[in-house]
Structure formats: structure tokens, C-alpha cells
């Protein structure tokens, strides 16, 4: 930083130094948060010296070659990831095409509903589908045997079952990405094809598909990388049946006794190397888009008249929303009010005891309030931090801000569980004892949600005309004054959106929290996962629903407050 200051050659002045100091602090904090754990992760992965001696006495590749014994885990991971990516893309492509390019009925309502699966987490989905599709106790299989079937009709604890649950959740992400590409396509490109005499299907094959192909490829790579690092569905559905993917294997290596930390680190580094490569590829694919489909002009994409077929298309979209949202929630509600979850209701099986127990559990009560407080603090500190970062990356002249962008986006390429492993290792060595406290959870959340916050706020900054800020500067306003009077008010929508996203993501965080929470710093989502393994699944269902309702209430409250504030808040 001091070199940057020297290079701009600015004589010491109050305004400039305030800016420089703030930027230096933010960059130092981010560098520490992101790179320090990664360093320790790498160190652990290459540590082949005496166990439990730090710093390592010898380095080598032994941990990686030892992974060969676990080839089955790699194969499992690849099968689950490929299957889940394929299904998610099918869901995403179909729904995106139906909702942007056809005259499907209730198009706007469906489009809003498509975002909901994202808020129904894979953990919730996995718990619900476990009730539905477990080979013995699953409702579907109970009914199947009830009508005379034999064995299990479906088995959700297999690779395909896990992939199915992951795909239901991630399909909504694929929809958003592919839908954006389809929406931004200039209909003139297709009309031009028809004008020269090509038919509808020929146009679709020769013009439409090639045009959206890069966007779909980008979505495929992105979804694949996300699936590689996903954790909760495989944890809930796979672990009881001893079916492991890389992330759950890492968790197993870390939490078993004795832990096999170097092996876990090597597995984590391998995973993150692949994800990093995928995300790099994703950036290349989306950045070098030679197909300029986005022309900045406003247009409505042309929709095809599907005739009666449009009700079938409607049914497809509705089925997706039903399978990913309505059915899981209904299943959890249904299971949570039963003593023993069975497919057919009966009066003497009905109970509210699960809720009573859930609320009386001290662990749940403290975990829930801990989660909410942590979410509030993470979101508030997070928007300040990511807002500054987004501004530095988008608007400052700081040398090396490209590198900063890579560092900030780095956590995106590291599964949260792997990142938490690095943090665990790193902060154990840190002179200030924060391991096992809320502080480490706060730092973990702030770090893993950096990309989320920076991306959200950057999106708003990029839409702001740069001269709005420059004009304030020419009018004589210092950096701090501009920040207060121009930048912050104009960024308000982005900051609020980022706040809400970070809050919701923090409250529901599992991968990082499960490794980092201590006995006195329990948070909700890992508590739910633990309850699944140690108590009844009916109680777990109640807990998961309580969390979902609390998050929903928090979101509604936030929306109401900010809407009211924006109505009242006029003036500087």
C-alpha cells in the first residue's frame, strides 16, 4: 500500500490518506482472511513429516498418492456430479426456454416461483426426500409395498438419488443463468433467418441453439463446479449408507478419531484445484463471448405460439416447482407432526411433541439465536467490507486491483468445507485464541460470502454512470464526503440486496460451520444435521421447519423495514 501511495505521488492530505488508509485496511483484512487459510491448507496437504508437529518437518506428495486408495470416492463424486449437472441443466434449459420463448400461461407467476427452490436449501430437500424415498421407510416405498409392490420402488440414498436432490435445488440456478442468455437475445437474429425463408425448426436449430450455446456451456461449467463442492445432500442421504463423495469424505477424515488431517487436506486441495480450473474455464467461456447477443437495446424476446401444447409446458414448470418446493415442505410438515413418520395419516400417530422438544432443547434455542445474531453481524460487516471491495475493484485506480478481484473471488472456487478446514488449521496456529468461538465463525462467513457480496454490489456499481461520482469530486468533495453523500445513497439497493443475501446465506450455512463451531458456539444448520444423525428424523424435520420459518420471517421483516425506510427517507 505504501508503494501505491508513493506511486500516485500525492502529497499527504487528509482526504486522500483517509481513502488510502481505508483501502489499505480492507485489502489487508481480505488478504489475511482468504490467503492465510489457503496457505495452511496447502501446508497441511504437502506435510509428510512427523504427525502433529508444526510447522511440518518434511514436504512431499505422499498424501496425494495415498488418495489412490480412495478411488471409489472419486468415482462416486464424478457420477453424482455428472448426473446432477445433467439433470439440473435439463430442468434449467427446459424451464428457461418455456418461460422466455413460449406463450406459456401464468408466465410471470411461474417465473417468480422459479427462484423459490434456491431458498429451499439442499439440506431441507435432502431431509424431505429422505422421508419420501428412503428404501425401507420412505413414503413412496411404503405406498408401493402397500399396493402389492416388492422391495423399494425408489432409493434416494444412491448416487442417482443424491444427484436428483442436488439437481432439483441447482436447477433454479441453471434457470437463472440460461434464462438470462435467452432473454438477452435479439429477436431480429431469428427474424432474419425466417425472412430468408428458413422454417421455425430450422431457425431454432441453425440460429437459436448456436446463439445460446455459449451461455448454456457457461451455466454447465458453473453448475458442475458447484455440484463438485456441494455437501449437504450427500451428507444426509449418502453417509448413513456409507456412500461418500469427496466433500463428505473430507468431513469424515476430519471428524473421525483419530482424524486423518493430511489426507483430508490433500483431498481438499485436489477438489479445489479442479473447481478452480472449472471456474477459470467458466470465466473464459463467458468473457470471450464472440456471439454478441446483448446489444443493450431493450426488446422483448419473441415468443412462440405453442397452441394447446402450452398447457403441457405449464405442467412441466409447475411439476418442477412442486417437486423442488411444495412436496419437500409438505413432506417435512407432515413428518414433523407424527410420532413415527409413515405415509398414511392416523389420529394416534399425530403429535406436536417434536416441536415442543425442539423448542425445549437448549442447543436449539441457543443455536437459533446464535445463528440470527451471527447473520446480522455478518451481513452488516459484510456489506461494508464487500461494498468497499466492489468500489475498489470497479472504480479505483489502485494498481493491482485485478489481483484483488481474483483474491476476493477465490472462496468461490473452494468448497466451504475445505475452506473451513484451512481456517481451522490456520486459526489454531494464530496467537489470538479464537478457535471454537463465534469470532472464527464470523471470519469464516465473511470470507466465504465475499464473492456473493462483491458480485451483488459490483452489479449495481457497474450500472452507475461514473461521472456521478466524478462530478462530486470536481465539486470539491473529499472521498469520504462523496462516499457518504453520493456513492452510498446510490448504492442503497445493491447494499440492501447484498445484506439480505448474506444474512440468509449465513443463517443457513452448513459446510464451514460444521467444522468450525465449538461446543459453546453452536449454530442452527449444523445442529439440524447433527440432530439427523443422533436423534429422530421427525424431530429434525421440526427443527428444519423452525429454521425455515424464522428465516422467512426475518426476510419479510427486512423487506418491510427497508420499504418503509425508503418511503420516508427523502433528502440527504
Amino acid at each position: 500500500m505504501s508503494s501505491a501511495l508513493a506511486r500516485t505521488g500525492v502529497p499527504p492530505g487528509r482526504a486522500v490518506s483517509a481513502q488510502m488508509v481505508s483501502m489499505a485496511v480492507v485489502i489487508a483484512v481480505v488478504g489475511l482472511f482468504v490467503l492465510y487459510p489457503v496457505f495452511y491448507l496447502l501446508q497441511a496437504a504437502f506435510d509428510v513429516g512427523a504427525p502433529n508437529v508444526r510447522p511440518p518437518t518434511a514436504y512431499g506428495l505422499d498424501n496425494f498418492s495415498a488418495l489412490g486408495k480412495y478411488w471409489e470416492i472419486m468415482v462416486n463424486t464424478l457420477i453424482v456430479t455428472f448426473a446432477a449437472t445433467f439433470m439440473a441443466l435439463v430442468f434449467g434449459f427446459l424451464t428457461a426456454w418455456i418461460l422466455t420463448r413460449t406463450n406459456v400461461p401464468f408466465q410471470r407467476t411461474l417465473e417468480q416461483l422459479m427462484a423459490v427452490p434456491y431458498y429451499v436449501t439442499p439440506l431441507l430437500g435432502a431431509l424431505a426426500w429422505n422421508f419420501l424415498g428412503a428404501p425401507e421407510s420412505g413414503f413412496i416405498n411404503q405406498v408401493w409395498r402397500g399396493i402389492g409392490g416388492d422391495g423399494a420402488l425408489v432409493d434416494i440414498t444412491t448416487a442417482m438419488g443424491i444427484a436428483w436432490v442436488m439437481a432439483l435445488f441447482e436447477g433454479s440456478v441453471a434457470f437463472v443463468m440460461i434464462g438470462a442468455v435467452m432473454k438477452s437475445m435479439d429477436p431480429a437474429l431469428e427474424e432474419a433467418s425466417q425472412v430468408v425463408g428458413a422454417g421455425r425448426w430450422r431457425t431454432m436449430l441453425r440460429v437459436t441453439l448456436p446463439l445460446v450455446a455459449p451461455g448454456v456451456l457457461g451455466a454447465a461449467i458453473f453448475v458442475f463446479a458447484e455440484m463438485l463442492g456441494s455437501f449437504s445432500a450427500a451428507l444426509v442421504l449418502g453417509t448413513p449408507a456409507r456412500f461418500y463423495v469427496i466433500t463428505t469424505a473430507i468431513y469424515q477424515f476430519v471428524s473421525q478419531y483419530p482424524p486423518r488431517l493430511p489426507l483430508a487436506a490433500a483431498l481438499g486441495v485436489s477438489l479445489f484445484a479442479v473447481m478452480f480450473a472449472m471456474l477459470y474455464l467458466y470465466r473464459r467461456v463467458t468473457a470471450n463471448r464472440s456471439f454478441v447477443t446483448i446489444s443493450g437495446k431493450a426488446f422483448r424476446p419473441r415468443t412462440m405460439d405453442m397452441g394447446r401444447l402450452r398447457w403441457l409446458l405449464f405442467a412441466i414448470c409447475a411439476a418442477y416447482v412442486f417437486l423442488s418446493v411444495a412436496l419437500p415442505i409438505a413432506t417435512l410438515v407432515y413428518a414433523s407432526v407424527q410420532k413415527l413418520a409413515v405415509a398414511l395419516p392416523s389420529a394416534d400417530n399425530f403429535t406436536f411433541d417434536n416441536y415442543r422438544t425442539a423448542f425445549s432443547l437448549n442447543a436449539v434455542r441457543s443455536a437459533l439465536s446464535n445463528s440470527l445474531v451471527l447473520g446480522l453481524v455478518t451481513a452488516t460487516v459484510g456489506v461494508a467490507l464487500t461494498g468497499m471491495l466492489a468500489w475498489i475493484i470497479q472504480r479505483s485506480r489502485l494498481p493491482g486491483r485485478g489481483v484483488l478481484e481474483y483474491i476476493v473471488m477465490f472462496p468461490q472456487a473452494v468448497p466451504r468445507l475445505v475452506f473451513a478446514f484451512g481456517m481451522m488449521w490456520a486459526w489454531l496456529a494464530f496467537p489470538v485464541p479464537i478457535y471454537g468461538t463465534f469470532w472464527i465463525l464470523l471470519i469464516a462467513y465473511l470470507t466465504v460470502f465475499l464473492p456473493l457480496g462483491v458480485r451483488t454490489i459490483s452489479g449495481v456499481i457497474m450500472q452507475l454512470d461514473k461521472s456521478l461520482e466524478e462530478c462530486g469530486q470536481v465539486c470539491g468533495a473529499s472521498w469520504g464526503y462523496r462516499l457518504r453523500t453520493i456513492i452510498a445513497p446510490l448504492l442503497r439497493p445493491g447494499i440492501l440486496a447484498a445484506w439480505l443475501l448474506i444474512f440468509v446465506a449465513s443463517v443457513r450455512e452448513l459446510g464451514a460451520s460444521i467444522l468450525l463451531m465449538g461446543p459453546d458456539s453452536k449454530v442452527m444448520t449444523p445442529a439440524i444435521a447433527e440432530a439427523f444423525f443422533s436423534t429422530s428424523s421427525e424431530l429434525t424435520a421440526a427443527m428444519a421447519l423452525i429454521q425455515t420459518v424464522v428465516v422467512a420471517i426475518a426476510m419479510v421483516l427486512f423487506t418491510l423495514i427497508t420499504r418503509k425506510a425508503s418511503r420516508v427517507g427523502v433528502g440527504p
Partner: protein
Amino acid sequence: MTTPRTDSPTAEIEVEDLVVRYGAVTAAGPVSFTVRQGEQLTLLGPSGCGKTTTLRAIAGLERPAAGAIRIGGETMYDEARGIHIPAERRGLSMVFQSYAIWPHMTVFENVAYGLRVRNAGAAEIDQKVRHALDLVKMGAYATRNASQLSGGQQQRVAVARACAFSPKVLLFDEPLSNLDAKLRAEMRIELRELQHRLGVTSVYVTHDLEEALAMSDRIIVMRGGHIEQAGPAADIYNYPRTAFVADFVGSANLISGRLRPDLARDGLVALEADGGNILYGDPHGRTPGPEPTMSVRTVHLQLRARSSGAAINEWPVQIRRAIFLGDLTQVHVDWGGRELVIRQTAAMPPAEGMIVYLSIDPAHCVLLEPGEALQVEPAPQQEVRPVLANLPTE
């Protein structure tokens, strides 16, 4: 910080060997010029010529790579001495191409911003904001939300905001380019009057010739990051130095040929055009090369039905096309195998194919300085800057 004035005692802005680079690309420079106190200077040129970059460097919004900038005698930037005063402490003001009206403030708050930054008292703010808004005839809109204004109104508010805190220097970055043609013509006059009333030193950037001629005491024509010609508006128009200036600044016929020193007379230079016609022109103190080019404004050529009997610069020509343009008629004639364009207001609508007499006053045949081959980039009609632009366009 104060350094002794190095140039004329009335120089308000001094730009010395300024170079601005974006990465490896040199966007402007080296350029040097001065703006006198109270003078209205225009930087004129096609897009990409470095005019906006130069303006932004004066404002302090770009960090130049070399050179020096002094404003009011104070060094604002000097690469050699490591001085770079940030824009907020240069004490000047600027009107942006996109107006940059803050949508979250009222008109009053927009205009009051510069005064609030300077910790002015409430009474002073009120009085100065009202005065500034009255200057641009927006007094009635003070309480309006800035997001409710039309383009022309936003433009006026932007001007009021720029003048409200009485800066010594006003910078204009193509402020009229986003207005429609009629409003642009109106605002041109208003801005000119405003500048005169305030007596403020100003630098104005535009790619529009009429705007440049109307707004400025002096024009600097830029091309490819360099100054092509600088001088009073009339000089730039009447005595273009190069083919580029002649063509960019208004429409001109450029006639090249062989120098015929043997035919020179009365201090005039004689040029034998490719078709064999001999054209006499005024060298304006310039030394002709062996193959000189002369520039003749299209409005300076005259068509007559009959010969005037002049000994030089008169030829019978055939009319190829006559195009009615409203205020003017544009006539294309065949002149020794090449085409010349004449714009005239004459009531006589020449019939195509007709033979008429073309004459040119030698004083209007301007000898251009020898230079590189003519390669004129077309002047854009309207430059629209994308909202998302991260890098300056010039």
C-alpha cells in the same frame, strides 16, 4: 504550493507537454497550450482525438504520464516534481456529457452540493443556489426531484451546479451532445451568454464545428492526441493549416496538383491541378511544397451564367448535379475531370448539364502546409457514451 507564473501574467490554465496514457496506448499528447483569464477555449476534434482525455487531465480525473498543468498560477500536476493534486482540491468545475445529475437529490440539493462541500452558511447557500438556478431559468424547479427532469432541464441544472460555487474555471465535456438538434442550437447561445456574463475561464470539448465556432474565442483542433491547429475561430475556419483541419472544420474542396512557380504573379501561388486547370491561391506566408494542396470552402466558390472576364481563377464548368438542401443548394460541377462542390444560396436553380462559369477569389484559396497524405476520419454526428463505460472513451 504557489509557483511563480511562468507564462503570460493573464494565463489561467497552462498545459505543458502533457501526455496521457492508458496502459500502452497514448491517448493524448504531448500537448501544450494556455488559456487566458476569462477566455473561452474549445478543444475540437473527432472521437478518439484526445480532447476529452486532455480535459479530464486538467480536471484531475485522469493521471497523466508526463508534463505539467498549472491553474491560476498554481501547479496542479507536474510529473517531474511528483505533484498531482486530486480533482477535489483543484477548485474548478465541470459539466459532464451525461449531466451526472444525482437522482437521489432535489434540484436544489444538486446545485447546493459544491457550496455545502465548502461549508457555506444556509443563507449563502440559499441565495447562491437561487441565483444559479435563475441564471439557467430553472428557478421554478428548485424543489423538484432531479429524476423527474427532461434532458434539457437536467442539462441546465448541471450548468447551474457547475457555476453555483463561483469557480474560476469551468470545464465542459460535450455538454450538448445528448440534446436534440433544436435544443442544442438554443443552449449553445445561452451557454455563450452565460459564460460572458460570468466572465469565467472555460475549456469546452466538442466534436461539433458549429458549437465550437459559436462557443469559443479560440479553438484548438486535435487529431490523434496532438494539436493540429490552434487559433481564433475565424482563423481556423478561414485559414486551415492542414487538409485535416480544412475538412473537419466545415466542408471544403481540397485541390492538389503541381506547383507552377513560372506562372506565379501578384504574390499568389499557382497550382496546376490534375486536369490541367491552373488555380491561383494565397500562400498566407506559407512556403509551398512541390505538390501543394489548396483548400477552398464550398461557400466560397461562385457560379455565374456569364464570364466576368477575370484573367485568373475562372473556368467554364458543366453542372453534374444540383441538390436542394433547404437553406442552401449544393451543386456538383465537373472541373477539369474532377468534381468540385459548391454551396450557394443563389435563387438560380442550375439545371443539370448546363454550362456555367465558376470563379474563385484567390484570397479564398488557402495553401495548406505540406504534410502527410489526407486521411480524414468521419466526424460522428452523435457520440453516445455507454452508461457502463469503465474506461474513458477517449
